[in-house]
């Protein structure tokens, strides 16, 4: 009954599920983009418009200029990129130490790293605020960069140590025989092999900083220093939601994440599979 027609099987068990999953994932994104290009009046109009009849970029202009997305975007970008750099360097080095060295209390150190992930962020807000206030860093992107780095480091360290442990120790030994110092071996031998892992860590960290709302709001007291997620929350009022500008803002916020994934995709796939094979 089911055996002969391979083509039917392929359609039934491959193309159909894939298409359904694709639709499921893509529909909200399509609807957001669709809404972003509609006039305010057309958004809630019945019957629904599946494509904007008279497309407009008005919502983007409102979000970018009136609501201040230009500034929020810049702030998010500075914080995101800097955090990613710091996290990558620190987590590569600490991941390397955790994998390659034996030291007293290594087990409990790892456990401690893991435990930090269980602390609810909301509990940290007031202590963090007081610390940064005393340092004069409230409304300064550095407060967010430091906090995000601290929040991300434990997980990314464990992640990186996993990637590093996949690279045979012999490669470094061979480099040492050829006259490389420890740092040179790390830079010229390990680094290129670790690239997929680094990309995975970078994407993970960037997405977290790009989406984080609570700390970004709490540690900032100046309008011009808010980040994108805080900006998006301005669109939802008590009696009215500015759907057009909200959708336009979401599309703006989506762009860097999409570009990042498009670029990082091939590294991500190989990163998930482990750094070195064979």
């Amino acid at each position, binding site marked *: 009954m089911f055996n002969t027609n391979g083509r039917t099987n392929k359609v039934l068990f491959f193309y159909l599920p894939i298409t359904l999953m694709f639709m499921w994932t893509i529909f909200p994104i399509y609807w957001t983009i669709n809404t972003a290009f509609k006039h305010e009046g057309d958004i809630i109009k019945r019957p629904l418009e599946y494509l904007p009849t008279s497309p407009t970029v008005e919502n983007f202009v409102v979000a970018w200029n009136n609501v201040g997305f230009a500034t929020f975007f810049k702030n998010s970008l*500075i914080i995101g*990129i800097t955090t990613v750099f710091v996290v990558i*360097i620190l987590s590569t080095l600490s991941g390397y130490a955790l994998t390659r060295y034996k030291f007293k209390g290594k087990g409990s150190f790892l456990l401690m790293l893991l435990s930090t992930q269980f602390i609810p962020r909301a509990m940290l807000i007031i202590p963090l605020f007081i610390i940064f206030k005393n340092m004069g860093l*409230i409304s*300064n992107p550095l407060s967010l960069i430091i906090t995000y780095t601290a929040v991300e480091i434990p997980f990314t360290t464990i992640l990186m140590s996993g990637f590093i442990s996949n690279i045979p120790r012999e490669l470094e030994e061979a480099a040492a025989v050829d006259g490389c110092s420890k*740092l040179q071996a790390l830079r010229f031998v390990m680094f290129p092999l670790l690239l997929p892992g680094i990309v995975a860590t970078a994407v993970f960290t960037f997405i977290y900083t790009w989406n984080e709302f609570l700390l970004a709001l709490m540690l900032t007291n100046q309008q011009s220093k808010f980040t994108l997620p805080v900006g998006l929350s*301005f669109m939802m*009022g008590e*009696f009215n939601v500015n759907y057009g500008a909200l959708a336009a803002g979401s599309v703006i916020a989506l762009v860097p994440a999409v570009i990042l994934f498009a670029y990082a995709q091939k590294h991500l796939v190989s990163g998930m599979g482990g750094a070195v094979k064979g």
Partner: protein
Amino acid sequence: MRNLLKISALIMLIAGGILAGCGNGDSGSGSKDGKVKLVFWDENAGPQRTPIWEELIDRFNEENPEIEVEYVGLPKDSAKAKLDTAIAADDMPDVASVQTSWLPEFAIRDALLPLDDYLADSELNDLINAGAVNFNKEIVNDGKLYGIPYTQNLDVIWVRSDWFNDAGVTIPSTWDEFFNAAEEMTGDGHYGYTIRGGAGGSFQLQRLMFAYSGLENYFDEDGKSVINHPKHVEFLEKYIELYGKNTPKSDITNDYKEMIAGFDTGVVAMVHHNIGSYGEHQKAFEADQFEAIPLPKTEDGKYVAEGGNTINVSIFNTTKNADAAWKFTEFINSAESQSYWNEQVGQIPTNSGVLDMDWIKEAQHIKTAFEVYDNPDTVLYQPPFYLPDYRSILDNIVDSGTQKVMSGDSSVQEFLDEWAKAVDASEAKYNEAMKK
């Protein structure tokens, strides 16, 4: 290796740049270029309200070149948490827009500056709605004034006046007329009324109950909640009776959007909400098709409204420039500024100086609300905002309880007893903590 060094140097440079560029993280007041700098926090920022505040601040800065006000907008859902953090860390703004229900807590935490003397010496004293000002004093522990209300809202019933006229039914002003209208206006493919059975229904239900009973206090002489008072039971039994007969069956899960859509798409003839939904109705109807009426009067002819439906300008006591902060507070509450703000947002000013302005005369719903607030017989009852679980009782016990009564799983008496018990328990816990 050299590249690694280069990257590190680059990061140092970026970090240095950020530090240099954003040195001033102060949220409080200070002086810059000999100017007094004030920081103002808006508790409900967004594309609608932010430009209004910015315009008012520009006007103020222009009028007062020695003062510079900086605007910081906060998203509505997180504004309270942000202010809580600021108070805990002693890093408050100079001035803020503060909801009335937050005043008792902020007063206990000793965060705000009393404004009684400032107001007494100001020409605003005779202009700002006395009921709202007194209410602000009554709800705080020490009886002082911690916020000058610049806008107020009021629950009203929106009615399809065109349908009422066609059917020859009286637009209700008493509760008997209301129940009668709900019945008479059902038919011809529409219902007389719609009940908010879903999220947020509890707030509206409470206001309707007090408007019917005319009870002026939330607690009786023995300190027990009046929620399960026989008058409230009587009202709710009549009210629930409407469900399914004179209201859509789907009302049991109705929240704001569905309820307003029901009215705006011609499914129901009356809906209870506040004047804030005017903008939605205006999009759907011509001006002569709908109007706002006050919640019906009690048996003895009084309007009863929930107090605290206002937003205030408050000054935090950590400010170093209290006089400048008062100047700004006074400016926002001037007839001109209040008129500008409230006309744009569609709410009711508290400054009686705006009464003569054209837009008030033309806005039927604002005029209706003004009449209720300016009526000397209007009673404002005071909900226990100070109870830490006031909100969660309404959200968790009352919203779901209403649905149980609507579906017939619980009687009105059982439901109101449960609600009253929760309020009493919370009040007892609060009194214990405050050692009353």
